[in-house]
């Protein structure tokens, strides 16, 4: 955003600069040269940091992905696309891709639906201000916990002899508890549930802000036209929130695809790889198998997938 502003503000039209340069005394020439350079000077700290902290590491990872035995060998050789072939034909990677897709899709949809539901609850005129404030604090709590705390809490609660199974067997009428995080049939869903629980408050708060920005006149007009609450939701609320919802959905897809700590601290990708995600797969390749070349190839694939999403997000922002 800032560079665009500077471009508009700083350089005068080329013709004007040329004529002024011809007519101006030497002191003014220096002034205008300095003025042209100044924006770049202001940008240079950021550009330098971006170069050192982003461009160089990304370039290194991309270059690693085309070499064989990088890091562990003193003189790695060029391997072409071999690492990409290895990764893309690895059943574990394909399983991780599938798991990641399910994890992201379910998480994003649930975040939006729950976020919307709770935001509407907090926005309703049926509840008093104090009640809303209390619920707002309660609902936002999961978002305030760090990932480590969330992982520990849910590992304890979903333990075979934890609170959830205790309730299900005593109150819920189940005969025996479920191994939520260690049963291959339930682990991915349990993990996704934890992620949904941890992330929905952010959506709730964002959507609530959007709801509070919708003009009451629109609802009043819809009401005068005889629209039912459902019709008002479909024809007023959703269209008004659409930019927020789409932006948040795209951001959530990107964030969820990068989720690592929660998975690592709860299931570690197991049992039987059913919760293996692209992030854990890449980590294991690098820090367990010491296959930094294939880890780099996997990371580049993830980067490309994320860049597609980022492209849509940026385009969306421009349209707005």
């Amino acid at each position, binding site marked *: 955003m800032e560079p665009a502003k500077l471009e508009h503000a700083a350089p005068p039209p080329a013709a004007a600069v040329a004529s002024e340069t011809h007519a101006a005394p030497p002191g003014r020439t*220096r002034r205008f040269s300095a003025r042209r350079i100044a924006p770049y000077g202001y940008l240079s700290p950021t550009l330098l940091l971006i170069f050192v902290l982003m461009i160089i590491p990304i370039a290194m990872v991309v270059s690693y992905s085309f070499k064989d035995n990088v*890091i562990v060998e003193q003189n790695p050789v060029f391997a072409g696309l071999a690492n990409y072939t290895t990764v893309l034909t690895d059943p574990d990677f394909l399983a991780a891709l599938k798991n990641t897709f399910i994890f992201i899709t379910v998480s994003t949809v649930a975040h939006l639906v729950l976020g919307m539901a709770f935001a509407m609850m907090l926005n309703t005129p049926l509840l008093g201000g104090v009640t809303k404030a209390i619920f707002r604090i309660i609902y936002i709590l999961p978002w305030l916990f760090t990932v480590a705390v969330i992982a520990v809490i849910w590992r304890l609660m979903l333990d075979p002899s934890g609170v959830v199974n205790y309730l299900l067997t005593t109150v819920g009428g189940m005969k025996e508890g479920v191994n939520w*995080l260690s049963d291959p049939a339930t682990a991915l869903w349990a993990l996704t549930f934890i992620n949904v629980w941890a992330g929905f408050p952010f959506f709730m708060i964002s959507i609530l802000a959007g709801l509070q920005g919708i003009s009451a006149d629109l609802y009043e007009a819809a009401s005068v036209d005889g629209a039912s609450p459902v019709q008002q939701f479909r024809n007023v609320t959703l269209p008004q929130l659409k930019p927020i919802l789409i932006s948040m959905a795209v951001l959530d897809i990107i964030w969820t695809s990068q989720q690592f700590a929660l998975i690592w601290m709860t*299931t*570690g990708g197991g049992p039987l790889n059913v919760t293996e995600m692209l992030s854990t797969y890449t980590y294991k390749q690098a820090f367990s198998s010491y296959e930094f070349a294939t880890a780099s190839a996997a990371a580049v694939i993830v980067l490309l997938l994320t860049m597609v999403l980022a492209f849509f997000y940026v385009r969306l922002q421009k349209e707005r």
Partner: protein
Amino acid sequence: MSGGGTGSHGLLRRLLGVVAVAAMVGATAVGCGSDDGDSSGDGTVTLEFAQWWAPELPAGSFDKLMTDFTAQNPTIKVKLLSGPYASTKQQLVSGAASRTLPDVVGLDGAWVSDFAKQGAIADLTALMAEAKYDSNQLASQIQIKGKTYMIPVVNFVYPMFVNNDLLTKAGVTTPPTTRTQFLDAAKKVSALGGNVKGWALPLDTAVPNGIQNDVMSWLWASGGSMLTQDGKPDLTGPGVKSTVEFVKSLNDAGVIAPGSLTMKEQDKVEKFTTGQVGMVIDSLAHITLIKKNNPKLNFTVTPIPAEDSYTGKRGIPYASWGIGVADSSKHKAEAFKLVQFLMSQQTNAQLSTLANGFPGNKTAEPDFSTSDPLFKTAFDIYQAGQPANEFVGLPKAEDLMRSFDEQLQLALTGKQSVDDALTKAQEAWAPLI
């Protein structure tokens, strides 16, 4: 923006200011990677020592040892880089990749082969020779192709922890010494009902050391080996097969605490501490933690049960706080002085006592006078048995454990036979070893 910027001087001054800020940021960024500052003009050398030991010792005790070292070697200072085990490992892997390892590094035996292959850690055999160090006093050295890369400073053994009250309640009068007795005891404890089970088996694949500590330990206890005599994998051999079949029989008998497929080591300790399992194979280092969290728990430590017909010396798994020197260190001689200090009879005994471990120096004797009597019991087990950990020094040791873990999980969940699991694990290991 315009204050003071009325003339060309103001604008230039502003521009210079911006460039100065940029230069400062750049210098800061570059300075982060600077290697200066490890030796000062007066000849004092500052060694960086990365390890996970200090956080696991009583607060300040490791710093005090470093102060003692500096008192003995006034020209050498030590800067401790302390963190948890996992983050230390990540830091060292990154450091090894970028040739920026700290001068002295705490090592786990499972990392040594890979770091040595990378050329990240120095050949200690040469440093010992240069320093005229008598290596006979060392209990063990971790060697790759005849060269020492790691010296175990403190060893932590993994005996069987037994909950006396649960076993007594289940009608088991003495801790099991054979696999048959163990299965029988585990069944009786599990029959007590509630959430109580006979044994806990952590098979989490994020940190798959359960394969080393809780599975292969059964093999080593019976004098078995997962490697052939020439060091190749022998997972389809009778020893490993018998071990995995035994573990599967425990699983089939329903005596293993539920949730084992994603259970972590800390979960295992927690379950034992809270009396949810009767027996676990665990590090001696956890005795203090268990007693702190549940002072009333009545438990003891015993040797890991062996095969019924086995009468030889029992292998007992161990893990070490190992030490090595970075190959990229500019102060290898000084770094080795720190190694010598930690391996000296007095310091090594002191450190072992603090860590509740067993010394890496054969002549050092830990002081059990103020320790829990269980440490003395464990020390007797340690001396009567044979320290065994075949993963130490193997390349990609964690990867080996993980691939074995994945196949074992498939066998335990009935998705494949034990034979198939071992054949696939053998295939996964063969190219790596």
